[in-house]
């Protein structure tokens, strides 16, 4: 699979999710740590475009062979796009968790929420890797 990394320039949530903020939109996904815990993903059913998601609450589930995990929203907003390609190749989340393995894109409802997230260094500390 991919090698362990937590890129700078992304923001991180304690429940192992990342956000790439671009103005009033953001791309969301799960971190290398999260995909490593789960093992190879076999299923991701994306929420519908237009769904409102709330920071700190679950907005979807990811499944590996032996586990199911809630995906926690690091930020609140409305889903503008979901990564439909993951329907056929969910393992992209393992191979490229920050790139092709993105889960959803949202229009932020409160750009201030980003301040509550961690940067890469803080997240690495959080998971005991730094």
């Amino acid at each position: 699979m991919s090698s362990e990394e937590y890129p700078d320039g992304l923001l991180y949530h304690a429940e192992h999710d990342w956000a790439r903020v671009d103005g009033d939109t953001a791309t969301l996904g799960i971190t290398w740590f999260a995909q490593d815990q789960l093992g190879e993903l076999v299923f991701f059913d994306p929420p519908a475009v237009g769904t409102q998601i709330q920071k700190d609450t679950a907005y979807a589930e990811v499944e590996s062979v032996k586990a199911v995990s809630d995906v926690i929203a690091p930020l609140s907003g409305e889903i503008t796009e979901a990564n439909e390609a993951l329907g056929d190749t969910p393992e992209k989340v393992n191979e490229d968790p920050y790139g092709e393995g993105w889960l959803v894109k949202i229009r932020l409802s409160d750009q201030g929420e980003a301040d509550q997230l961690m940067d890469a260094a803080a997240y690495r500390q959080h998971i005991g890797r730094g």
Partner: protein
Amino acid sequence: MNAPVESGAGTRSDPRAGAIGASAGLNPREGEETLTLLQKSRRGRRAFVAPATDVPEVPIEELLPASAIRKEPAELPEASEPEIMRHFKTLSTKNFDLDTGFYPLGSCTMKHNPKLHERVAALAGHARLHPMQEPRYAQGALEVMWNLQVALAEISGLPHVSLQPSAGSHGELTGLLVTRAYHDARGEKRHKVLTPDTAHGTNPATVTMAGYEVVKIGTAEDGGVDLDALRAAANEDVACLMLTNPNTLGLFDRNIEEITKIVHDVGGTLYYDGANLNAVMGISRPGDMGFDIVHFNLHKTFTQPHGGGGPGAGPIAVSDRIEPFLPVPQVVRRDASQNGRELEFDLEYDRPQSIGKMRGFQGNFGVFVRSYAYICSLGAEGLKEVSETAVLNANYLKARLAEVDDLLPIAYDRTCMHEFVLSGRGAREQLGIKTLDIAKRLLDWGVHPPTVYFPLLVEEALMIEPTETEPKERLDYFADAVKAILEEAASDPEIARNAPYTTPVRRLDEAAAAKRPVVRQPRER
């Protein structure tokens, strides 16, 4: 180490050799395809010969409307009897089984299946009896059920038994539904059921099916229920606490009397998951601990063969206050002098507060026959000896495995009951192999691995239940095999990571099976 007691499902060979008994390249059957019977079928072959039609024949179109007549035949196999036999016999050789070797699966109680049981279950009087046969012509069957009920009541300490549920989960659901009926009858609406975080997955799944909300109770440092957490959660919105004792960590909860009091004080019922009953027969009874409802797994403690995934049975025993709500029909014994009835045993349907039916007819009667035969064979003393020996075997194996407790530390270090849980975290940190790898390498040793990754509370869990039917030397063999695997991993962890090598297939791609499920043989024609 000594030569193995037996070799089990495969022979040990050079781990990198490949299939059973093969040096690379010399097995001409190496690349043979695995085919289903459908794929082996050929048009026109058959095993069935129909009895002669001895009545006048009427065209099917006159007997059935066109819309109902099947247009496309079902693609079932076409093969002769010898080919069918070869197909299934060959498949059977790919299974490891209990008659072949050791199966220390925690909470599964894989004890020997006595051979007498198939013989008594096959007696025509039992096997060929129609479920709707009038009770006066089924007195033998009803007496089997009655006697089994009496025995289960005595073992559990709860007087009223329903044999109807078909498996443990079914019994759990029945138990929560009678709980609901009980509270409804008292005019109380309760919404929550408490379960410990060590509970078997069927418990919370059952809670949801019964329309309740799961509230998880944490585990204390000694491995028992966290009493403070329980007290905090226990209130009048709690319908029931579901527990097993000993629990899935194999530990007897010393606070059990306090636990049942806490729940009873808020008016809740107590449900005992009988999966671990093998530890306490004749020693402690759930009824005496304070439980209202108990389920039994006849396919665990009472030797019904597992059959690769059933059949089983999950009868329940309940206290007086729960009795009115039991499913119908109930097997009852009537005093012959009452109302001049001749029937000694009967099926009672007139139970106005019953929850109704959980399934058709009376339950898995064939399973009752086997369990009853077991209880007859062992008797009071024998059943107690079962539990004593089960606990002795588990503690001995635990003591043997303590020899590698730096790599496989015990999750909770005190006397266990019939099973115990080790953590593979030491092996992972020091040797770089996971519990999964140890399990797969054990397959090459001709034993079935223990339960792995359960309970969730323990990291890299290995849950081990030897049962009472294993001799000491087999426990030693298993402990020695585990030690050998750890030693082997210390010098080359890759061996375990790529195990097994000697089984009919090696590690399978489960991710692919989940991503693109293929759950039937596709049609070719």
